[in-house]
């Protein structure tokens, strides 16, 4: 096993030892079961679940990402004195955290669905939700790591990471809406698709809503979205955008970390 895999393994152990990742999974197990059993309608409960996932997964990833980075400084310093490549230490810690968050998220939702015993079509929708949730986990964890490495001060780093989450989850939509209202007289279809691509949360929301055939709810741009995101090419572009949201911060993070003093 190479050193990267070892670091992933040990950060993974370290994280699983504390109760909060477990609690995170249990929360999704509870909320998914509740929604599936009490609403009766699968699509409705999936949309409710979607809203919870889109708000909470980025938030929790941001919070855990910053906390883990600042709190594992000891672990990092210990590893830095060992014969391991620097980038492997940090990449390993990132993967360890991301994988454990993804696992408990997917297991929580997945277990609830298995007990509910849905149809094949339903499971494909749910899989899409799990995929988007996992990508959002990876995105917001790396953004949190990047912010943490840039700011020595814990409180400052934490604040800025939360601000980024707030922008993506709430403020972006508000600005987007204002933009649509102000430039109402212009053809905005293409622009709105373009703007959506820059926000991973919005992108995930649309990817899932379109699959549920509730695109009509998206209003007058909905048709454009459907035309764009519904095609193979559109789906590919959106997933590329989401993956870029992981890769670009990751490159910046590794570069920043390789010049950092401890």
């Amino acid at each position, binding site marked *: 096993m190479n*050193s990267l895999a*070892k670091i992933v393994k*040990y950060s993974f*152990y*370290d994280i699983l*030892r*504390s109760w909060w990742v477990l609690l995170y999974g249990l929360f999704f197990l509870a909320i998914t079961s509740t929604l599936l059993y009490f609403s009766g309608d699968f699509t409705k409960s999936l949309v409710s679940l979607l809203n919870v996932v889109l708000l909470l997964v980025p938030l929790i990833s941001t919070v855990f990402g910053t906390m883990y980075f600042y*709190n*594992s*400084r*000891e*672990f990092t*310093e*210990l*590893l*830095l*004195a*060992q*014969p*391991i*490549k*620097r980038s492997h230490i940090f990449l390993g810690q990132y993967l360890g955290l991301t994988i454990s968050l993804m696992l408990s998220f997917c297991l929580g939702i997945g277990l609830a669905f298995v007990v509910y015993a849905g149809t094949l079509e339903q499971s494909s929708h749910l899989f899409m939700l799990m995929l988007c949730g996992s990508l959002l986990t990876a995105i917001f964890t790396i953004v949190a790591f990047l912010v943490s490495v840039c700011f020595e001060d814990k409180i400052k780093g934490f604040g800025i990471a939360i601000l980024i989450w707030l922008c993506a989850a709430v403020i972006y939509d508000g600005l987007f809406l204002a933009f649509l209202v102000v430039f109402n007289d212009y053809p905005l279809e293409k622009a709105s698709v373009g703007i959506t691509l820059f926000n991973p949360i919005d992108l995930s929301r649309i990817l899932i809503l379109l699959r549920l055939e509730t695109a009509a709810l998206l209003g007058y741009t909905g048709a454009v979205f459907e035309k764009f995101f519904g095609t193979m090419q559109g789906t590919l572009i959106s997933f590329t955008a989401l993956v870029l949201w992981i890769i670009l911060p990751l490159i910046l993070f590794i570069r920043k970390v390789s*010049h950092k*003093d*401890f």
Partner: protein
Amino acid sequence: MIEIKNIHKSFGKVEVLKGIDIRMEKGKIYAFLGPNGSGKTTLIKSILGLVQPDKGDILVGGENIRNNWHYKNQIGYMPQIARFPENLTMTELFRMTKDIRKSVSNEEEYIRYFHLEDSRKKALKNLSGGMKQKVNAIQALMFNPDILIFDEPSAGLDPVSHIKLKDLILQEKSRGKTILLTTHILSEVEELADEVIFLLEGKIYFQGSVPELLYSQDETRLDRAIARITQKKTLTKYKNAGM
């Protein structure tokens, strides 16, 4: 063997190391002294690659350490404050470092030496400060590395453990290791050091044996000599500033 050539390092506007040159040989103990903030820890961290110098080169066993990590196989490091992943136990910690380093280790011998047999299964965060310090020492020693670096090793150790650690350091020296030590405890320096390197404001102010240091300051006691150097430097600083 370690060679340090003209190392400079600044943190923001503060210049911490201003051109340090040292050559450290096998089978000797080098004690780094100096007031707080004189750059001791930064220098040690530069050798470990935790801090990256702005200028200059460090050679460990003839190898330049810039963008290199293999050389850390030759180094055992005992940091100033015991810091571990919170949730691991001692056994797991040692298993992890063994897994990473893949060299022969004899941690059992040291666990017995420091009487830590009963703490194997306890989470590291629940160990006392002194016990953590011992775990730290074992981490540094267990792979039998050629170079040993101790950053204030005595902090938090009880007197008996302190003596035990000093004995270990002397024993390692007799095995031909290069040993680096920073400390504020001067008895430790008198007892252990072959060479004292006194850092002041990022430069080497004095380098030589303890008797040489005493002679240069015309003192009979090490603490007096150290105090004298520090005071003299402060005085000249004020004079230069026109005060």
